């Protein structure tokens, strides 16, 4: 049905609340990509089968990502008036057991992650607190988080517009269209201090104002969902878990700048996000929240999906425009900026997924509320995907200003296997590696950039003592070498040559003057490149040179890799006094490089056959293999 008045919204809200908090038992499976990847599909089927078999009248639903991806598949069981518990690391067997336990009231606290409560839940249905299971807000992982962009992810059925409205969705758009002038919307966003979450941090309000003031009848809004940093998946999760927030944000942006058409540029490697978006747009159209005369205001807006083929450079806005237009995804020089001359030469504003997901929340709760969160120049929250050698991995939304130490050691739970922390890499391949001495730095655009890194779109990779910083710099450069479009000389040729120098160092052929050569080349690539891909490409090299120069020197002068990663600079040894000839290593070695010398006698290693893969090191139980 069409939603055109506040009354309609209120009515749908009631329906949505009944859908989120039904009177029957409800089992919800987290089915974003992270869930699917760990087997949520099978868990869902198992629950469905068990429910049918046992003829239990429970509702089975799906939701997006709750953030704690490491503990997926997550299953939430809501028993009205009794409990609402999220279970972690579900298997089909465990899930079926939970269904079987529905009758006997065994809550299986040993499998639980946490319990949830929600002020929106009607009192008569509200769950009671269960002992032995921590509250969501008490978990170390969630304690310091603050969810604005991810407010609905994992809490609603992403494809159900009623549930989105139940959580307050579309009230912001109603307010904008019924009470506010475009200029007021822009003023509100400016006042909130919201800055682009795609990486560069350009003030969103100013971008919108430029778009508004640009001459021309036809204007476009584009949502940049071309997320491509290795290990980063914030935008995917928002699109899969709360797509309506992005669509509502886009509609508000369109009204503000005076546009009637928008595109969501999303990579086709995100099939679930594309599918969810398709359904979302179709449903929003059906409900009258996209299309002609939205909320009877006379404002029209339509959205089309433009699928990208996954080139990293297409996240850069001028390349993105070329790609949407059907041309080769290559950047062009700015100015003119897209807000002046964008898609097909028309004024176009391009906002990142997370930026747009913040917009409805800002309108609903007010710019002052939003501007009250964060630091002097970085307001609100930022979503990071915390990965690498850290205890808790997943999506983390934190208020700006929180320190990197809090993120790594409190939310992240510290380094895996009690190893020593070495660095945290922010901003993806264009970012930099920040050492332990700078962990006091706050999450803030300017502070991170002063340290030589960038906020970026939200990648956060934790590295431990076993990570070689030169190897890491080389990894990011190889990614960029592959992803550089090749249009301009400094990026195409410069990255290649930086890699050549790094490879020499890694292989033990480095010379001391290579460090100077690297610095000179890195400066030229940063200064001379056409777009931000090349402009920021040297960051991993420059920051590792700045903070881990001793590692470079160890590779070059002593021909040693302190982290024992670079194969040309390490050797494996059998510690004879520790080896008892158990031959576990012999069975593991793929090269047959270890020779049996008799019972209880130490084995011998044939270095001419050894490929330094480290399999023996993992196999040995006596610590009798050493790497030097």
């Amino acid at each position, binding site marked *: 049905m069409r939603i055109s008045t506040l009354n309609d919204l209120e009515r749908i809200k009631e329906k949505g609340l009944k859908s989120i908090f039904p009177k029957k038992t409800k089992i919800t499976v987290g089915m974003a990509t992270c869930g699917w990847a760990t087997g949520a599909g099978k868990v869902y089927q198992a629950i469905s089968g068990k429910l049918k078999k046992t003829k239990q009248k429970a509702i089975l639903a799906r939701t997006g990502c709750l953030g704690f991806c490491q503990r997926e598949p997550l299953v939430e069981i809501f028993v009205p008036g009794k409990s609402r518990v999220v279970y972690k690391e579900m298997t089909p067997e465990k899930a079926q057991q939970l269904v079987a336990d529905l009758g006997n009231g065994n809550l299986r606290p040993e499998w639980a992650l946490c319990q949830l409560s929600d002020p929106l839940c009607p009192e008569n249905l509200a769950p009671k607190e269960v002992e032995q299971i921590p509250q969501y807000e008490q978990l170390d992982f969630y304690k310091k988080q603050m969810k604005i962009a991810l407010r609905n992810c994992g809490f609603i059925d992403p494809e159900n517009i009623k549930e989105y409205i139940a959580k307050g969705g579309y009230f912001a758009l109603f307010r904008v269209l019924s009470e506010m002038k475009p200029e007021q919307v822009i003023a509100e966003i400016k006042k909130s201090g919201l800055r682009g979450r795609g990486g560069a941090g350009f003030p969103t309000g100013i971008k919108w104002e430029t778009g508004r003031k640009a001459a021309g009848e036809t204007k476009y809004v584009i949502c940049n969902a071309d997320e491509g940093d290795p290990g980063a998946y914030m935008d995917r999760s928002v699109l899969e878990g709360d797509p309506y927030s992005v669509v509502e944000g886009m509609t508000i942006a369109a009204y503000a700048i005076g546009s009637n058409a928008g595109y969501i540029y999303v990579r086709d490697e995100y099939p679930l996000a594309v599918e969810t978006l398709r359904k979302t747009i179709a449903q929003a159209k059906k409900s009258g929240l996209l299309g002609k005369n939205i909320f009877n205001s006379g404002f029209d807006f339509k959205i089309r999906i433009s699928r990208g083929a996954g080139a990293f450079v297409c996240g850069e806005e001028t390349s993105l425009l070329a790609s949407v237009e059907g041309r080769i995804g290559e950047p062009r020089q700015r100015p003119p900026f897209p807000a002046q001359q964008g898609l097909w030469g028309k004024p176009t504003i391009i906002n990142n997924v997370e930026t747009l997901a913040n917009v409805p929340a800002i309108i609903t709760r007010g710019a002052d509320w939003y501007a009250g969160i964060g630091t002097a120049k970085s307001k609100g929250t930022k979503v990071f995907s915390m990965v690498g050698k850290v205890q808790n991995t997943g999506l983390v939304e934190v208020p700006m200003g929180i320190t990197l130490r809090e993120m790594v050691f409190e939310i992240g739970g510290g380094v895996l296997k009690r190893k020593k922390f070495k660095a945290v890499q922010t901003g993806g391949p264009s970012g930099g590696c920040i050492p332990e001495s700078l962990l006091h730095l706050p999450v803030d655009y300017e502070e991170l950039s002063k340290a030589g890194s960038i906020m970026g779109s939200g990648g956060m990779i934790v590295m431990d003592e076993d990570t070689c910083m030169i190897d890491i710099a080389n990894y990011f450069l190889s990614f960029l070498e592959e992803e550089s479009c090749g249009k301009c000389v*400094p990026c195409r040729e410069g990255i290649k040559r930086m890699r050549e120098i790094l490879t020499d160092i890694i292989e033990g052929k480095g010379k001391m003057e290579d460090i100077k050569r690297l610095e000179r080349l890195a400066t*030229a690539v940063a200064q001379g490149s*056409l777009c931000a891909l090349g402009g920021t490409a040297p960051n991993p090299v420059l920051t590792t040179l700045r903070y881990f120069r001793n590692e470079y020197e160890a590779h070059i002068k002593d021909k040693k890799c302190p982290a024992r990663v670079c194969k040309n600079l390490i050797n494996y040894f059998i510690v004879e006094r520790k080896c008892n000839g158990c031959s576990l290593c012999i069975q593991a070695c793929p090269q047959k490089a270890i020779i049996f010398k008799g019972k209880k006698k130490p084995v011998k290693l044939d270095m001419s056959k050894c490929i330094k893969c480290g399999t023996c090191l993992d196999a040995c139980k006596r610590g009798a293999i050493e790497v030097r």
Partner: protein
Amino acid sequence: MITLTIDGREIKAKDGATILETAREHKIEIPTLCYHEAISSAGACRICSVEVIRGDRSRIAAACVSPVEPGLVVKTNTEVITNLRKVLIELLLARCPKVKAIQDLAHKFKVKKTDFKTEDEDCILCGMCVRVCEQIVGKSAISLVNRGTKREVATPFYEASSACIGCGSCAVVCPTGCIKVEDIGDKRTIKKWKAEFKLQQCKMCGKYFAPEAQLEYLAKALNLPEKEFEICQNCRVILGKISKAEEQKSEQMKKLSLS
């Protein structure tokens, strides 16, 4: 007209012009490798990089694709720029050590040798050949394919392009001379594009002068009878002179007969 400053000189420039065009108009030299006034600029080689200062923000931009703006301060010759150009030249020299245009540029900027491992390429991937074929010839017989270090200029599927008319415009604009057009007898070969063309023989002097495919295309594009293209440029000039002389002669005759 707008006013900006280039290398300390206050300069009036046409609105919409680029920094490079404006500078050249005022005899301020900015080196280029992939610029040609007949085709659009891409900003690929970055040799024309200059410092552009707007208010209190300074950045480095390619002059060939940067529009002039009122109040801009442009510096074309600072230490930062020279150092950048030197690295760019070294990078190009490593890629194409045997190309004369790059050797000349290296000489001009006192780059004696390149620091990097040398290759033996002759194309700098500036894409001018692609743009001239699209924008001037109107054929798009070649294009840039692949990306990054795998980038190259190629015909569709690396086969002889049916769109190519053998005009050789690509070779004319190529800054490194890596596209070779060979005319032997009645045959034109462009090896790089795997293309062969039959040449038209001039009806007057008998010289082979242009690919038939190109003349056909011109006749169609200009809506002229194919006969117009049966004689070569030289003969056409001579023919023009003869007819002009004859015209003058007959006019003189007319005048004479009238008087």
